[in-house]
């Protein structure tokens, strides 16, 4: 009987707490686009105008809203054209209302770290070293999230540096999430040094999280650094009633984060200190309303328990509504109308097929660029956008080809239908010779099999068949080899 009791007690230790349930709920809510995992693509609906409070990559097949950190970097990367007030406003409101309670309750990355920490291994205690390391996230925030994107923005090159070079969540949710679906098998060809480096970082962070509590959250996460700045003013959070406090310090010793006192910028408001406080001086409050204190086992009053039931029902209804909204097919999900195609050989976007004909208006010219008019020439079609960093970097390569081989090789850069900047104004800052066109309704990129990834380049042979059509950055050498393969004399 004693053995069974011990086993039961052990199992009870592993039952999910209320906080864990909230974390799981949020992870499911942020990634409610379940059909994205089945189809191997991402959600493109209106909810992506909004940001979730926690770290959740928007390239994850399940993500229904934008990541605040990714959105901030992209907004700062476009700060040469537009002041990034929207994302700053959203972050201020999240910080003010929630502070680092986001880290403790609402962040899927935090949940993953805590689950990794549950793996039974020796653990590294907090100390002077971890306390000092906790300032590293501020360095990462200022260098990779602010300075680099803003610095490159004034060179008109979008660079979300933290997402590109460090973020392990993007690698896990975005890359592995997409590539684990066989539908995206062709995307494996795009993996290279960048992915290898990020994957190693992901493995290193995952290993660290097993031995060190919330290692990414404590040492590397810039979002935690941002929310930590609001620690003194956040409405929701763990607060200490100083008149009741006896100064025993049990709260800080039981806490696994690098806090100096409860509620400082390292506190994630998980509430573990609430149970540890012998004087019952600590509680989770929203303004003046107490949400959780030491006597949580029994609801305080009938009103309190009714309020809890209503909140739980509302939360479940919200989740079900979102799941229904994002997972049912809508008119916007219908394939885009394709450009007119010739009724001859198999037409399509795969290599070896006949390229679908299209006609796009060219900036600064009266005549449109029509593919069929360039039969007999090698044609390079590059799909790009001003807000796409890799696209902007490779445009000069195509312009060089146009300048040097314009008679033999036709080149056109087609801007995606999703325009955020005045493309003509953007181009006026450069001395490009090649034609730039706009795919206003997205039909051209759709007919070339493109959808949600840029840059994409298609190389079409002199007989109109597709030699190459793939998503991914282009180098000078690769372009030269493709043009040779297409029969151009380069």
């Amino acid at each position, binding site marked *: 009987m004693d053995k069974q009791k011990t086993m039961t007690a052990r199992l009870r230790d592993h039952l999910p707490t209320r906080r864990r349930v909230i974390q799981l709920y949020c992870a499911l809510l942020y990634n409610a686009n379940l059909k994205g995992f089945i189809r191997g693509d*991402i*959600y493109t609906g*209106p909810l*992506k105008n909004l940001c979730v409070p926690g770290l959740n*990559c*928007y390239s994850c097949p399940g993500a229904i809203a934008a*990541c605040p950190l990714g*959105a901030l970097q992209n*907004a700062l990367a476009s700060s040469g054209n537009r002041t990034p*007030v*929207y994302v*700053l*406003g959203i972050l*201020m*409101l999240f910080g003010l209302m929630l502070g680092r309670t986001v880290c403790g309750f609402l962040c899927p990355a935090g949940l993953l770290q805590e689950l990794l920490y549950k*793996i*039974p*291994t*020796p653990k590294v205690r*907090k100390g002077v070293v971890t*306390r*000092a*390391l906790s300032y*590293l996230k501020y360095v990462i925030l200022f*260098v990779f999230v602010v300075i680099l994107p803003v610095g*490159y923005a004034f*060179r008109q*090159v979008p660079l*979300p540096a933290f*997402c*590109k*070079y460090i973020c392990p969540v*993007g690698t896990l949710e*975005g*890359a592995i999430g*997409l*590539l684990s679906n066989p539908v995206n*098998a062709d995307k494996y*060809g795009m*993996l*290279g040094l*960048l992915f*290898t480096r990020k994957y*190693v970082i992901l*493995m290193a962070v*995952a*290993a660290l999280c*097993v031995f060190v509590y919330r290692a990414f959250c404590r040492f590397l996460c810039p979002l935690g650094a941002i929310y930590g700045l609001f620690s003194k003013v956040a409405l929701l959070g763990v607060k200490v009633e100083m008149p009741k*406090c006896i100064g025993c*310090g049990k709260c*800080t*010793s039981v*806490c696994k984060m690098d806090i*100096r006192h409860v509620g400082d910028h390292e506190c994630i408001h998980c509430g573990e200190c609430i149970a540890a406080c012998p004087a019952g001086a600590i509680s989770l409050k929203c303004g003046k309303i107490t949400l959780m204190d030491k006597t949580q086992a029994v609801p305080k009053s009938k009103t309190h328990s009714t309020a809890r039931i209503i909140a739980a029902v509302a939360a479940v209804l919200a989740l079900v509504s979102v799941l229904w909204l994002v997972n049912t097919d809508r008119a916007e999900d219908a394939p885009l109308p394709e450009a007119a195609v010739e009724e001859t050989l198999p037409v399509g976007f795969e290599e070896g097929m006949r390229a679908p004909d299209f006609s796009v208006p060219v900036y600064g010219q009266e005549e449109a660029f029509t593919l069929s008019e360039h039969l007999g020439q090698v044609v390079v079609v590059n799909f790009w956008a001003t*807000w796409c960093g*890799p696209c902007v*970097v490779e445009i000069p390569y195509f312009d060089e080809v146009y300048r040097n081989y314009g008679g033999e090789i036709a080149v056109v850069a087609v801007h995606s239908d999703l325009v*955020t900047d005045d493309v003509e104004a953007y181009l006026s800052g450069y001395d490009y010779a090649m034609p730039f066109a706009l795919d206003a309704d997205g039909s051209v990129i759709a007919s070339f099999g493109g959808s949600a*990834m*840029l840059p994409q380049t298609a190389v079409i042979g002199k007989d109109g068949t597709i030699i190459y059509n793939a998503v991914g950055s282009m180098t000078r050498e690769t372009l030269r080899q493709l043009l040779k393969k297409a029969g151009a004399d380069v």
Partner: protein
Amino acid sequence: MQSMRKALRWLMGALTLAICLSLAWTCVSMYVGRGSQKPFQMAEVTERLRAMLPLFLVWVLLLFVCLIAGAGGETDRRGQIGAPDMYLMQRKQSALALPESAQAEEGRRRRSTRITQLLLAILFLPFLLWMMGDEALSLDFERTMGRLMLYLSPVAMLALMVLMVHERKRQESIRKECEILRSGSKKGTRQQAARTDHTSVIRLILALLGILFTVLGVMNGGMRDVMVKAIQICTECIGLG
């Protein structure tokens, strides 16, 4: 039993580390093996992961053994370091006046913090100035990142050491002040000035600014920018670019 649980934890730690290292090595060896010629193919990746399956199974088995043996759950937290700040905060809240010696200790601590902040500024300022220059922000991103790591790493290491020394001194100082307060010295006590709480005002200002920024952002197209990026797969962000 305790030593068996401890041994199981160490074994689990070693195995977990081995799996993480194997996964990282698999990726690196595939890249290094083929270089830039499409190093990753789905079939090959699947085959390599399948080869690691026995290791994963052993790991899962060991996890169950640990859970059954009670090696899971919270580990012993004796000696977990807690900061003495709470005692000091509590004494400051409850006492109208602090002894002069405690006030002096606090003054020393504040000076030490200022010196640390100055040292950190001296460490990071040249780096920041370099970052602002044209030389730093090259269009060859790999070169930029390489140079960034080259310049930032030693600065970060030095800053870490400065912070560690400061933190240790700070904790010693707080312990000293707590000792003074515990000893109950009333020599030369001074009245503490009551501090006005500006939190509500700051909250109101931040709330208004947040709402204003959000509305302005919607009006100037910022919200649409978020949408445009979010509905496209950021290939460079997920390592495909």
